[in-house]
């Protein structure tokens, strides 16, 4: 009996072996044509996207993925060139003065359907972005333009917006307040031109699929399968099409998992993959070239200034300032090359008058000193009339790095100040909502620049700024911001910024911790990909593939 059973088992086993063999056969014969990360013959690059762009409507897009795609599909008045400098886009020349700007558009600029790009397309796009019903979250970025805020709030009709087409190829912008950085705004996503007839035709479906918008950039969107696949192809109508060397950017993978992207990179399927701490070690072991760029964003601890919070006490904040060493945090705790310790509200990438701001106006450094920290703490105790500090809440994000960082602060507070820090780890939206409600003592927050001017960081802690989640309110700080906003003199502006930088160190509304950097690996045959803070990232308009 046992024998028959065993033979039965053997039959079953050989059957399954056959099954596996035939499955493998199917797998192998139906494997996709050997896709390659870079293909020199076809000038094709294959990439993975972390997420799908939520929208490609430039009036309402806010995220970096949409920014990356749109920077390839559309061209603004100005663009950022291969070196990250402002250069001519649709506008071939321009003039910036104290109360406005004029742009003269090139007549050779075309939409992908062959129609010329005119000044009317810009006027329409800007009015559309500011229309209250559009509800564009980036509408505020237009506010230096005359009447922009009033139009956005529905107090004035959109025809009152300070922008008009003098002719088909001349655009005039009037400012409501000085805006020395307007040229960089002219290269920003929300300032891209839009075609009225295309928007009217598709209505709420505008930009929902690849055939529901037109393009005036170096590439067109050839394919968009939602959640799965995007493909860009060189735009033959682009006025500078001759200088675009990449024919096709294919993105057949959408996954936010860095390990999956790294595996695809190792398999030669994609040309660029981001690295986190774990993957960095692996990339180093495998001898890949590690690339780096500064993302321009600042990470900091923000204190709560609402009534009754211990963190509203300056001596307490000074104690924390003396306790935390950004250098130690970056090198010992985070340990990711490319991330830099922060000492100022303004990252090293912020521009000054001619050179980087931080070179023109060096920041005053406060060195960590545990004895001084305890002295400040004793002083705070006295000022607050406390016997003992109650436990404080540190609101933090849910990434592994955020937790690591939070636990480090927890340790420092306990060991250095004898204060218990309770970590309140929250997923993104809940953290933002708790920040808005002021449901924290200290929050580990971050800020990325919106536009290429120091003001994108500076006015963050003005008392009226909605993003000032700690409700810091300092009349002196506000006054310097107002002064800078109403001055068109560069030196006055930057001197005011130096005062802001000083207030942040002396009064500690926030404690800067680190400046973020991004590490990645890239196929060595792919050249000329621009990584930058502004103008879309990564940028393939100037890229090429080596044979």
């Amino acid at each position: 009996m046992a024998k028959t059973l065993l033979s039965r088992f053997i039959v079953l086993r050989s059957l399954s072996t056959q099954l596996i063999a035939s499955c493998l056969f199917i797998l192998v014969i139906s494997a996709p044509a050997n896709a390659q990360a870079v293909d020199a013959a076809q000038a094709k690059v294959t990439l993975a996207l972390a997420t799908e762009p939520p929208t490609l409507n430039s009036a309402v897009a806010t995220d970096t993925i949409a920014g990356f795609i749109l920077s390839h599909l559309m061209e603004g008045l100005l663009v950022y060139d291969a070196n990250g400098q402002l250069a001519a886009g649709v506008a071939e020349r321009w003039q910036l003065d104290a109360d406005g700007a004029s742009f003269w558009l090139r007549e050779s600029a075309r939409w992908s359907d062959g129609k010329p790009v005119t000044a009317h397309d810009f006027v329409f796009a800007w009015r559309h972005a500011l229309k209250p019903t559009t509800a564009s979250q980036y509408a505020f970025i237009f506010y230096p333009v005359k009447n922009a805020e009033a139009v956005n709030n529905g107090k004035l009709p959109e025809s009152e917006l300070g922008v008009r087409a003098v002719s088909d190829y001349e655009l005039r912008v009037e400012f409501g307040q000085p805006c020395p950085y307007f040229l960089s705004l002219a290269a920003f996503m929300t300032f891209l031109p839009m075609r009225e007839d295309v928007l009217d035709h598709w209505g709420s479906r505008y930009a929902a699929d690849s055939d529901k918008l037109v393009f005036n950039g170096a590439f067109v969107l050839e394919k968009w399968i939602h959640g799965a696949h995007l493909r860009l192809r060189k735009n033959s109508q682009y006025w500078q099409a001759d200088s675009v060397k990449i024919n096709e950017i294919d993105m057949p993978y959408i996954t936010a998992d860095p390990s999956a992207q790294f595996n695809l990179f190792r398999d030669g399927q994609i040309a660029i993959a981001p690295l986190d701490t774990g993957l960095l070690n692996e990339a180093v072991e495998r001898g890949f070239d590690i690339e780096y760029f500064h993302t321009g964003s600042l990470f900091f601890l923000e204190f709560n200034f609402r009534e009754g919070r211990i963190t509203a006490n300056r001596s307490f904040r000074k104690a924390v300032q003396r306790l935390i060493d950004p250098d130690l945090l970056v090198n010992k705790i985070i340990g990711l090359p490319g991330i830099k310790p922060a000492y100022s509200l303004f990252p090293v990438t912020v521009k000054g008058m001619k050179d980087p701001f931080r070179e023109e106006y060096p920041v005053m450094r406060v060195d960590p000193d545990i004895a001084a920290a305890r002295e400040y703490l004793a002083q705070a105790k006295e000022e607050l009339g406390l016997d003992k500090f109650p436990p404080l809440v540190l609101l933090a994000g849910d990434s592994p790095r955020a937790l690591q960082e939070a636990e480090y602060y927890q340790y420092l507070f306990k060991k250095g100040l004898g204060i218990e820090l309770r970590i309140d780890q929250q997923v993104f939206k809940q953290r933002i909502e708790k920040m808005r409600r002021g449901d924290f003592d200290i929050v580990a927050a971050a800020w990325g620049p919106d536009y290429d001017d120091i003001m994108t960081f500076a006015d963050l802690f003005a008392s009226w700024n909605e993003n000032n989640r700690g409700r810091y309110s300092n009349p002196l700080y506000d006054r310097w911001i107002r002064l800078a906003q109403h001055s068109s003199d560069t030196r006055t502006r930057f001197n005011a910024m130096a005062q802001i930088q000083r207030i942040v160190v002396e009064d500690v509304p926030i404690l800067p911790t680190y400046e973020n950097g991004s590490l990645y690996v890239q196929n060595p045959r792919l050249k000329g990909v621009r990584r930058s803070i502004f103008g879309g990232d990564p940028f393939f308009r100037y890229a090429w593939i080596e044979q």
Partner: protein
Amino acid sequence: MVNFIARRLLSGLITIWFIATATFFAMHAVPGDPLTQEKAMSPAVRAQLEARYGLDKPLIEQYQLFMSNMLRGDFGISFTQENRSVNDIIREHFPISATLGIAAVLIALVGGISAGSAAAYCKNRWPDRVVMIAVIAAISVPGFVIAGLAQLVIVALNNAAETTLLPVAGWGSVSQIWVPALVLGLGTMAYLSRIMRASMLEVLSADFNIAAKAKGVNGWRLFFHHQLRNAVLPVVTELGPTIAAITTGGFVVELIFAIPGLGRYFVQAVQQLDYTVIMGTTVFYGAFLVLVVVLVDISYGLIDPRIRLHRGRS
């Protein structure tokens, strides 16, 4: 039977209503809303958006509106995917999850039944031990580890062969289904093997099995007609929840293998508090689960000879 199905469907509808209501209020109780963004919004912009999505109305009114729209089969527009309706999202992405899920269930079913039977046949000998150790490993190692490992193995294979034997990730060709389906079905396969082994052991020592053998029945006929048909019932019972769990629980596999399935939208919607997508996917999956359970109940009657007898009498 008709009466039975009608009763099951009715209780199914009540279940779906309950799921929808509970999810609706739970989701609104979470701090923040779909409009919460990194950067603060001006009050004017927020008011516009709230009006557009009906968030400015009292909660109970929003609930009534949602329910009446749902009855008409309209789940509204996604908050995060600006121009897409929830119906479109389900229509486009569920078939992908379902394809992956069905492949996974098939693999789990074939693998689980064969491994479980083989283990029972060879009780306490090495094939049994091997299967049981594999079962414990497959049940205890989390899916994302197995998925990551599978991907590493593929990369190593491809690198060694210097060609693409198996795709690392992506979706669109038949070859891109099998590895994620295997990873997705592995835990279930292990679980089913265990059930199958236990149940087959019971059958092997049952009187009818000995009687069948005494009658001279042997070979495939004995296995398929007498042993498998009886032993497989507990597996079939598990099938309903299994199918539902696999087609909905593929989030990690979908993420790691870059598969545009609905599971990913489901989880992302919760993280981003995308109200309309949360409601649409939850109700859809709830309805799907209920439907599958009812279908399994019916199929149970078809497979088990005893249940069929019962039907004949009524």
